């Protein structure tokens, strides 16, 4: 008789335990998988939609060739030493300054990420441990990945001599060049040579001749070779050409075209 009364509660308790231990996890798993499915479906839809946009974006790019050329010239794929030297000298001459020296730093020595395919994050992660050539310490792949996405800089140092106003004009021109760059350091001092030579203190103190040592960072961005899902999803349905116009509006100094001119000499050791 007692069993009769206990049967239903016991069965109920057992069922509750079975539900909690076995069924509820399955329900949770089902909900989780459904949620994952919806997310994946969204991702797939996004990829298909973005891939669909690519064709129209490419057409848009081809029909705006001037903008494309400007962007590729403003943010070049590689560092152009010759262009940087030419520009620094050209603008100095234009500002009536004498160039005393120009030196260039090798960026790759300071930036380990440039030694790897900068536009391929997969390669960076899959690659063996990369060490910092300066410190010898291993670098976190995530840090490398972040660095690879950043713009690279080639630093150039120029020393010019001239008057104060001309140096200001030169700085202004350097800031407004038609190339991605920034003036990172400026040192201006009175001409030391003149200080030593000049016996007449009054004459030297009144002189306007100054020497300026200026560091300019020229930016470049390696060509994208392996776009991934993350970069694809950031794409809009059209290019933001307004950004280009904004940059263009701040440029007053166009970059002259460099030409090597005629080459070939009978005796390269003799000036002809």
């Amino acid at each position, binding site marked *: 008789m007692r069993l*009769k009364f206990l049967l239903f509660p016991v069965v109920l308790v057992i069922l509750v335990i079975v539900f909690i231990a076995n069924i509820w996890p399955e329900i949770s798993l089902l909900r989780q998988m459904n949620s994952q499915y919806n997310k994946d479906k969204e991702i*797939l839809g996004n*990829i298909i939609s973005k891939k669909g946009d690519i064709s129209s974006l490419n057409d848009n*790019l081809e029909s705006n060739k001037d903008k494309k050329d400007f*962007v590729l010239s403003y943010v070049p794929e590689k560092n152009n030493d010759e262009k940087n030297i030419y520009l620094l000298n050209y603008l100095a001459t234009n500002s009536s300054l004498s160039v005393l020296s120009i030196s260039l730093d090798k960026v790759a020595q300071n930036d380990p990420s440039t030694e790897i395919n900068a536009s391929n994050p997969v390669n960076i992660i899959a690659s063996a441990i990369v060490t910092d050539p300066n410190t010898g310490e291993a670098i976190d792949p995530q840090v490398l990945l972040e660095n690879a996405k950043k713009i690279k800089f080639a630093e150039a140092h120029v020393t010019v001599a001239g008057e104060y106003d001309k140096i200001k004009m030169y700085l202004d021109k350097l800031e407004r060049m038609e190339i991605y760059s920034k*003036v990172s350091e400026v040192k201006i001092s009175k001409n030391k040579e003149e200080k030593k030579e000049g016996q007449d203190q009054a004459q030297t103190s009144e002189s306007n001749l100054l020497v300026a040592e200026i560091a300019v960072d020229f930016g470049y961005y390696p060509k994208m070779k392996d776009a991934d899902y993350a970069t694809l999803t950031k794409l809009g349905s059209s290019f933001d050409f307004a950004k280009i116009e904004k940059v263009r509006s701040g440029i007053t100094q166009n970059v002259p075209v460099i030409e090597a001119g005629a080459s070939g000499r009978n005796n390269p050791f003799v000036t002809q």
Partner: protein
Amino acid sequence: MTNINLYQSPAEEKKSTESFFDGGFIISVVLIGLVLAGFAGIKIANWRIAERNQALAAKIDLEKNGISGDEQINKVVDFENRIDKMAEGIQKNNTRLVLDDVAAEIISGAVLAEYDFSEDGKIKLLIQADNFQTVAKQILAFKKSANFNAVTTEDIKRGNKNIELSLGMAIANKTVK
């Protein structure tokens, strides 16, 4: 004393033993059946959903793998990135204006001998002054300027003809120039 009749007829006894399989038992069996059926149903559903998810994931992988090798995608993404980098580069120090701001604070009796500006917005100056009073006034002029902050006197020494003052400072708002 009251008599209690404890007699039970055989029919009633039989009825009570038969009622073991009554409503409670049936409900229990039904519940067990329902739970088992539900469990099996969910298991089957999970199995099917897992298969569906796997198929979808494989499709996504296929689509993702197709991204990196696509020349057209690379070209478009590269251009978009380049535009973004260009826009990031707009904000920078205007070194000429900073130089103008420094010149605006130089007082009478003082001459700027050396100017050193670095990318982080820090400036070091070497100023030659007639006398210590001018030195004091010059320090005050920079400290009162809205264009500079963290003005520190690094060194003061007497030269042959004048007093040399080394000052350190930072641009107050280095990018908005």
